[in-house]
């Protein structure tokens, strides 16, 4: 299909029709159908990359304005093209640090509940492995949250964002970490915990 009306028509296939406010949005149910059409695994990274590309503000909710500008930016007109675009975006994450950073930061907003400023630790534990693949720092961090779940209930935006930086710089032997540096206090705890023999 072509542009303009076609994007509208495409959108309408998944749009939520039970709204009382007349807003043009795709809700989680429609979004899931879209992912189905794209053959995306709902537990994988693709749906989230898709949301991000479609400028969604919340998890599973796509507004038409975002849909339209997103599709145009990707220069995509149909399901096949969309699938390809999202796949290549995900490939690009590995090569383009700035791209991934932007996506990663947005993930925080997707994870947090509406009124909250922070993300629940258990949500972070569930989603980080999907989003960050096999980065070792993220893996350790997830284990750390799991081990300290009784004390640590949330992850703040600063901690989330700093985690990405940490993953880029921290050495496996932890030798270049200093608590005098500007890392969030939680990371001091993380490193201490990692240094414990029983943790290794």
């Amino acid at each position, binding site marked *: 299909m072509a542009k303009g009306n076609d994007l509208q028509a495409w959108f309408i296939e998944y749009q939520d029709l039970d709204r009382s406010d007349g807003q043009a949005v795709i809700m989680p149910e429609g979004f899931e159908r879209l992912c189905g059409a794209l053959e995306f695994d709902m537990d994988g990274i693709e749906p989230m990359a898709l949301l991000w590309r479609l400028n969604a503000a919340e998890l599973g909710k796509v507004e038409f304005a975002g849909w339209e500008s997103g599709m145009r930016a990707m220069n995509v007109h149909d399901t096949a093209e969309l699938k390809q675009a999202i796949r290549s975006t995900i490939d690009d994450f590995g090569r383009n640090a700035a791209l991934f950073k932007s996506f990663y930061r947005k993930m925080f907003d997707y994870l947090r509940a509406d009124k909250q400023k922070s993300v629940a630790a258990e949500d972070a534990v569930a989603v980080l492995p999907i989003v960050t693949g096999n980065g070792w720092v993220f893996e350790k961090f997830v284990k750390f949250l799991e081990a300290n779940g009784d004390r640590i209930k949330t992850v703040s935006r600063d901690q989330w964002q700093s985690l990405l930086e940490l993953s880029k710089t921290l050495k496996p032997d932890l030798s270049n970490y200093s608590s005098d540096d500007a890392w969030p*206090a939680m990371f*001091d705890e993380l490193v201490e915990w990692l240094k414990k023999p029983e943790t290794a």
Partner: protein
Amino acid sequence: MQRSGVYNFCTSLKSSLPGGTYYTPADASSTVHGSMYGRQLYTRLNDHVSQYMIQVAEKSREFSGDDLLSFYNREWIKYGDAAKTIHHIFDYLNRHWIQREQDEGNNVCDINTLMFRLWRNNFFMDVRNSLLESVFSLMKRIRDGQVADLNLVKSVVDSFVSLGSDDMASGSKKMEVYDSYFLKPFIEGSRQYYEAECERVLKEGSIRNYMIWVFDRLKEEDDRAEMYLHESSLREFGDALNKVLIGKQRASLISEFKPMLQAREKDDLARLYELLKRLGETAGLEPLRDTFRSFVEDAGLEAVKKVCGEQEAAEGNANKSRLFVQALLSVHELYSSILHDSFKDDPGLSKALDHACQKFINENEMCAGKDNNAARLLANYCDTLLRKGNATARAAGEAGASSEDNLEKQLTQAICVYRYLKEQDVFQVAYGRFFARRLVNEQSVSSHGEEMMISLLKEVSGMDFTSRLSRMFSDITVSKEMSERFKETMRDKRGDDFEFDMKVLNTGSWPLKAPETKLKLPAELDRAVDQYLEFYSKSHSGRRFNWLWQYSKAEIKMFFPKATGPAAKTGYLFQVSTYQLAIMMLFNAESGPGTGYDSEDGPTLTFGQILTATELDKDTALGELEVLCKARVFNTSDGNKATDTAQYTLNSGYKSKRMRMNLAGLRKPDAKKDAKDIQKSVDQDRSMSIQAAIVRIMKARKQLVHRELVQATIEIIKLFHPQISDIKQAISKLIDNGFLARDEDNRDVYNYLA
């Protein structure tokens, strides 16, 4: 006589001139003539005086010792006058021929200078060694304790000094004669003398003896030196003496310091201090500082250790804190007095004392664990001083002094310890709680005492802390006034036959929490409260009240139905808590709910009924009933124990020797819980202080590197020492709340978000 000498001198001079003519001003017109005469006159004078001096030198050889000094002195004085006169007589020569010669750069000096030169070259150089010998011998005699005329030395010194100031060359050589021909040998001679003396004294006695001897000798020498030495040499002379008398024995002297401290020998310490001070800050006093510091520190730690071991300390907080603080004070006082009396409040040693106190007051055996804390113990101690019913603490003051004076002294001492506390904010929170409790329970021993403490604290910590205390204080005063006015207003109107007082407190200023249980007031009390509120709202409208029944008390008269003896008529006087009151009122024959189990002892109530009627929660009710049952006010169906299944009846046959009983005060505050609450409050305050400090710094600097921000935060907070992890937490909070942001390009940098 001297005049005649001069006259003779001059006339003899005259006679040696060619033709016996005078040289007159008239001849000045002829320059050649004048010049010839000028030179002739000059030369003749020179020769004549030289001759004279040589004769004097010869004569001097007949003398030695003091006689030589006298002779020299006499001649010197005579000569001095003569020189002056001659200089005056030959004034014309000075101003004309001599001046001309000097202008032409010829080696000719004015008459006065010439005279001194002649003395020096023809007599002095000859006799100076003998002079010096005589001076030494005289000095030795004086030093050995004999009597001798010091003035002889003085005049010799003066002459040496004068002889050095005739040089036409630069002024700096003025003292040359004195320095090289007198001072140096004199100092060397003194040094040798004392070297020998030191050995002798050290051999004969202890180092302490030596010190006393040195101290006295130095004083003698100091006093004496002013009488004969030139003032410019006093320093050099003093240094030389210090070196030989003190410097050589420095190590042994310093090693005496510790034993002296141990034996508290103030006089010896004072002497040692004075002596070592003469060696200067670095060589003399610095070695003492570290010894002093560690000594006082050990003494303090030892004193606290002893307290920990004492049985009394284990028995309750009041005793523990009292013994602890008294131990601290005794050590501090002891070494402060040594610092003052023996070391004259020397700044270096004063600092050493402060460091030591800071250490042993905060980090000692008593405060090692989490249970005890110097700040809390001190607050507890202050509470025992200011709370009624604590005679022990106050009795520790001086006998004979008034109790007010004693209290002032003890509070001032407490403040002294406060200054050294590392965690003053913990003290402030703890003190605030104790203070509030005293006020609310009307337990202050003296309101003047409370005010005194507040102003002492203000001096050290400023208004921030004490203004809250002052507000609490004024709340009480205002409430009193209100109560008085209320009583006046209601005097005839109330109808109830009991008195009551209300305290209205500003929520923000008091560290008091809402009660843990509800309460349904007895009807009479309810009425009274309503009346008061009506009265109160006339002057202050729109205020919301939280009732703190847990702090209220009542005094009641109990008439037990079967009481006999004096108590039957007068009743027993009980002090009860409001909760207890509510429970007990249920058993008033006229107002109890009645269950059908009633007997001549009055109503019998189940636990459940009590709960319903009073709306108290289970734990509170049970606790109060336990107290009442233990006091035998109630009998229960459960072996007279208070349980939640028992039935309660008044003990109508109650009998006690004591007419008054306090049942309210028996539920004492839990010390462990107190400590926990205090720490929680402190932690909260600190977190906020750190955040506030960071915001202030960032507002001013706009952008700052992490390390600098941490440093600035530590510096700006004076009340406690913030931990780096706490600062990081605060930064995290501020980032989350949008006050700060990490810089995008450099994550070590923070930006202030306006």
